[in-house]
């Protein structure tokens, strides 16, 4: 939510091993999941454009979904990675108030998802890999977004991304908020930064549903298993991009070079696969995902 009090008041970084300041509720301070959520939302955390500037060269932004408009929370364009042409799609939140308003706090509307898939298909057509940088609290929940088919836009991307014949690499760099994040995340390789989160629901909304108290978000963050470590264990992601000590906000360059290494290795891994190989690789990855059930004989 744009007016989320936790986002708005989170000025001070919470270091991983910090001693507990007095007066704060204990679950906030002893809960690493919640600390990571706060780091993922840290106002000084590098955003997509910070990484694009550092990891790629010659970024040329391309606009518009060809149906309605140009979503400002979603950016895309071509660039060069280690001299190799790639298509970048990303979510940008904005840093100061003006930029946040311009970017709709990083919450895309349907035209953002439609722009993203348009650019991804363009990349596919010309055999360029897609690099997707995910950072959103979620797809925008508003009247205009519903009128223009937010659900359809997300659903369409999920299906069409699985059809792309080019390498697709997705990295959750900050917040991975539910369907709005996944709509850029159907990739051959999915990574998360060390302090990013990826979840089906925000910890605040989850706490509001369970305990009717969004202040219990730290408990929900723990229960939802939304950190990179948790999701690597559940085989939902392929790897973790290490952040500098106490978080990426302290050293944007170091975070960017860790991201560069990850992307380099992922592209090398996918290099031997042809179109059909890439589609099958991605399909099988998601087909196996979440096999957490047992089969009882009736």
């Amino acid at each position, binding site marked *: *939510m*744009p007016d989320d009090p936790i986002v708005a008041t989170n000025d001070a970084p919470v270091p991983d091993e910090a001693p507990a300041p007095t007066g704060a509720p204990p679950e906030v301070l002893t809960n690493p999941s919640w600390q990571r959520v706060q780091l993922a939302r840290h106002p000084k955390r590098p955003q997509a454009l910070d990484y694009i500037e550092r990891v790629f060269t010659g970024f040329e932004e391309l606009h518009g979904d060809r149906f309605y408009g140009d979503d400002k929370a979603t950016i895309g364009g071509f660039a060069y990675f280690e001299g190799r042409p790639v298509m970048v799609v990303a979510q940008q939140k904005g840093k100061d108030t003006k930029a946040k308003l311009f970017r709709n706090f990083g919450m895309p509307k349907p035209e953002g998802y439609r722009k993203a898939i348009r650019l991804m298909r363009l990349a596919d057509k010309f055999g360029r890999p897609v690099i997707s940088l995910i950072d959103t609290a979620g*797809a*925008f*929940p*508003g*009247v205009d*977004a*519903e*009128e*223009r*088919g*937010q*659900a*359809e836009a*997300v*659903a*369409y991307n*999920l*299906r*069409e991304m*699985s*059809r792309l014949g080019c390498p697709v690499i997705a990295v959750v760099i900050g917040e991975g908020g*539910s*369907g709005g994040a*996944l*709509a850029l*995340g*159907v990739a051959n390789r999915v990574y998360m930064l060390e302090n990013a989160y*990826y*979840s*089906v*629901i925000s910890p605040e*909304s*989850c706490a509001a*549903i*369970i*305990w009717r108290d969004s202040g219990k978000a730290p408990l929900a963050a723990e*229960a*939802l*298993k*939304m950190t990179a470590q948790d*999701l690597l264990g*559940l085989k*939902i992601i392929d790897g973790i991009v290490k952040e500098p000590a106490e978080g990426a906000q302290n050293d944007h360059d170091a975070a960017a070079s860790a991201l560069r290494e990850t992307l380099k290795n992922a592209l090398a891994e996918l290099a031997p696969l042809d179109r059909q190989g890439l589609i099958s690789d*991605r*399909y099988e990855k*998601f*087909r196996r*995902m*979440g*096999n*957490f*059930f*047992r*089969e*009882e*004989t*009736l």
Partner: protein
Amino acid sequence: MAWFTRQKPSVEDTPADAEKSVRTEGLWQKCEKCSQPIWRKTLEENLLVCTNCGHHFRIDATARLRMLFDEGKYEEHDAGLVSNDPLGFVDSRRYHERLDSMRSATNLPDAVISATGLLNGRRVHICALELKFIGGSMGAVVGEKITRAIERCITERIPLVIVSASGGARMQEGAISLMQLAKISAALMKLDEARVPYISVMTDPTTGGVTASFAMLGDMNVGEPGALIGFAGPRVIEQTIRQKLPEGFQRSEFLLDHGFLDAVVKRTELKNFLDRSIRFLAD
């Protein structure tokens, strides 16, 4: 000595379960919308659609399948799949306990029934979501059952119908639920490439991750009259915009107006609509 002596036993003395002389309970049902009392049997014959105002009552998955399959007969698939609570999730109660009590309350293993049978003589696969099972929410079991149904449709080349009634992804399975959106959508890509028809029927309510995946990906997307269909729930949107939402917002007719449904189909006409559509696509 009392002035009056009680001739009949008092009301309190009557056993609670004693048969009353006039029993109306359950025979009449008031319409949720127009308050018209309707003879229960008439309502059922009309597939739980109000005979006065046309309001569509919510119906459960079993009733839905009986209504769509010839003579109400179908074969169920993957009924043995049950969640093993991957996160060990605890909210107001343990998730695996919640699942157990849901199973006994609904007599279903999870929130979807996957079935094949005949629809006007043609073999079709229908998956119906059960709203009463944790809000029809989709976790790993629902995701797997629907994916297997899609795969069965590809192998056997039979049309697929999914009837949605769901609040979205299942919170208690975290990101695993979220990944089911991608898993099912990818399987639908294969169904699409195999050119096997898929019709999505959205009923009240269809929201969240279900709308944002398979429900919106039909070769035809249809809604029941008055069904709530959306990505974000109305309460979330109201909190975001801090305004009351207009009447009819996110209802089937609203989606039809905005170009997101092929048709709004009355329940009483649904079976024949599906038959005509599948015949057009598959014959």
